């Protein structure tokens, strides 16, 4: 949701973030799986940055690494001008940065009541002085997300998917964060419920001044909720721009193909749409192509694309693209 309050001061700055997982490849041998490979971007206070890409592109890993749920292989995460490094930094950071998970079924403990699920972050961070304060805080959170106070003593299985997701969101709000990583928060929900939850994210943002990193694969949803959108492919960021710009006029060949493939809920538009077909399949991140990771499927690829990785550079104000041929193919 576009908010006018979006300020220029970055809340989160990600610098050259890398996350490699070691994969066993035989006796005492391991090879790195480059899930996130050298990405840099900033998120301004009060904005929503959408992160899109296909399965396996590293968008979820990026979100989790930013929250230090995984220890980054390299790179820096800077929160309000301060680099997060020590264990103490991380603990402090986690009071300010939380996460909403995709699956509202497996991300809630079936043996805990809703009140305990929402209250757990408060327990972990010792954020209340009396039982009464804890209870009041939980009820306030439940009200924020549109849950009835009488639901507090119930268990997760008694709720529908949409309500469970509300519980997950209330939990993420418990510590009074200002940054939330939303990892596919609506993709498990029915269409009619999706809109309710998306609107709630909007409302909470304008009420509490929250900043979101919104990870999703549904491009229409991401476009609706985001101020800016970043596109990832095979662990790399290939384009970052304003939501409307990237949708109307994508510059990177991969973004072009991705956006042309979105099924538009309008028969006349859908019939007129020309899809840019991609040949082949996404290569395994264990065996990523040399140079630009997209060159094996790119309709514009040239020999130099296989040789060197294009720089992720600003081609227009606030618009970043990683492609050797940005100017040539878009003129």
């Amino acid at each position: 949701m576009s908010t006018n309050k979006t300020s220029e001061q970055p809340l989160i700055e990600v610098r050259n973030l890398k996350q490699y997982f070691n994969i066993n490849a035989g006796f005492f041998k391991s090879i790195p799986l480059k899930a996130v490979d050298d990405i840099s971007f900033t998120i301004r206070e009060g904005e929503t940055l959408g992160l899109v890409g296909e399965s396996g592109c590293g968008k979820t890993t990026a979100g989790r690494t930013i929250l230090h749920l995984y220890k980054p292989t390299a790179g820096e995460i800077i929160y309000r001008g301060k680099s997060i490094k020590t264990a103490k930094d991380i603990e402090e950071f986690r009071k300010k940065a939380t996460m909403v998970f995709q699956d509202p079924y497996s991300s809630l403990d079936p043996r805990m009541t809703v009140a305990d699920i929402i209250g757990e972050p408060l327990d972990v961070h010792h954020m209340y002085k009396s039982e009464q304060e804890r209870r009041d805080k939980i009820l306030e959170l439940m009200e924020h997300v549109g849950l009835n106070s009488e639901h507090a003593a119930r268990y997760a299985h008694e709720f529908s998917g949409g309500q469970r997701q509300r519980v997950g969101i209330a939990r993420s709000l418990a510590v009074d964060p200002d940054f939330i990583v939303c990892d596919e928060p609506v993709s498990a929900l029915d269409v009619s419920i999706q809109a309710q939850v998306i609107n709630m994210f909007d409302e909470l943002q304008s009420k509490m001044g929250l900043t979101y990193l919104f990870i999703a694969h549904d491009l229409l949803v991401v476009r609706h909720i985001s101020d800016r959108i970043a596109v990832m492919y095979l662990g790399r960021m290939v384009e970052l721009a304003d939501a409307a710009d990237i949708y109307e006029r994508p510059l990177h060949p991969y973004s072009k193909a991705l956006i042309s493939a979105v099924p538009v809920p309008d028969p006349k538009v859908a019939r007129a749409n020309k899809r840019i077909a991609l040949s082949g399949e996404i290569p395994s991140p264990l065996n990523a192509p040399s140079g630009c990771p997209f060159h094996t499927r790119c309709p514009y690829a040239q020999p130099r694309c296989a040789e060197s990785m294009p720089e992720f550079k600003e081609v227009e104000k606030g618009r970043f693209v990683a492609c050797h041929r940005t100017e040539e193919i878009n003129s």
Partner: protein
Amino acid sequence: MALLEVKDLHTSFFTDAGEVRAVNGVSFTLERGKILGIVGESGSGKSVTAYSIMQILAAAGKIVSGSIKLDGQELVGAGEKVMKEVRGNRISIIFQDPMTSLNPTYTIGQQLMEAIHLHTDRDKQQSWDRAVEMLRLVNVNDPEKRMKQYPHELSGGMRQRVMIAMALACEPDILIADEPTTALDVTIQAGILELMKDIQSKIGMAIIMITHDLGVVAQLCDEVIVMYAGGICEQGTADEIFYNPCHEYTKGLLRSIPTADDSGDRLEPISGTPIDLLNMPKGCPFAPRCDNAMKICMREHCEKMTINENHSAACWMNVRKAVKGE
């Protein structure tokens, strides 16, 4: 004569908690060479409708009443022998999850050839050739090599192509696709949808496309059925449904999804939660969530009303329209 004619189909699941009326009086016809989309949310009965046609319901499920005619032949109560002939040969189905619909312990080739061998009188070599030909038809590269591979060696999109190849191997008249692209990425999804449309125009079979994604429907379907709580709210051509929706539920659905020219305005969600099938309201099943519900909506179920020759809807709002002479 219509290729497939479903009339007043009722399918229920008999559970410990009571009878769940998953499909509640569904009627439609499908002509040869058409693509029919069935949209609805989880629990709306769209998949159960398809499984009833194939008669592959879970043990607790049963067709209570109604008729399903394929080329004039009644399938309800026809018996397993007839259905074995129908399944695969006349009507075939592909499922949502290509990971679990293939047997991990057999090669792609063995599984394809089994389907061909069962339904035609081809020998082993001919079955092999036919399988390779089918893989080529669904744009699987290097089909001879794929024949010897196991499902885990293929990507999700490839597996779904194999499923389509298998479903089409015996040239069925109807292909039922139950959310065939939901588990796939958008670029792969676009490829599969194009492939289905392409093959459909080549072979000329009819397709029943079951999905919750209105974008997929817009792209692929000639006709659309919108289902809610086991019944049909609205049916008509794709253009009629998208540009002239006449049921409050369809209108709500279309309002609640972000569109291509999104302005960032608030979405208009449908309030409430999906219905509990064990505890159906008396009148229109959508009435408790409907912003425009009238007294009659709570009291009486609305029968299907004709909007025009290509369009019908079961919503009392259209009566008011008629009364007002709009």
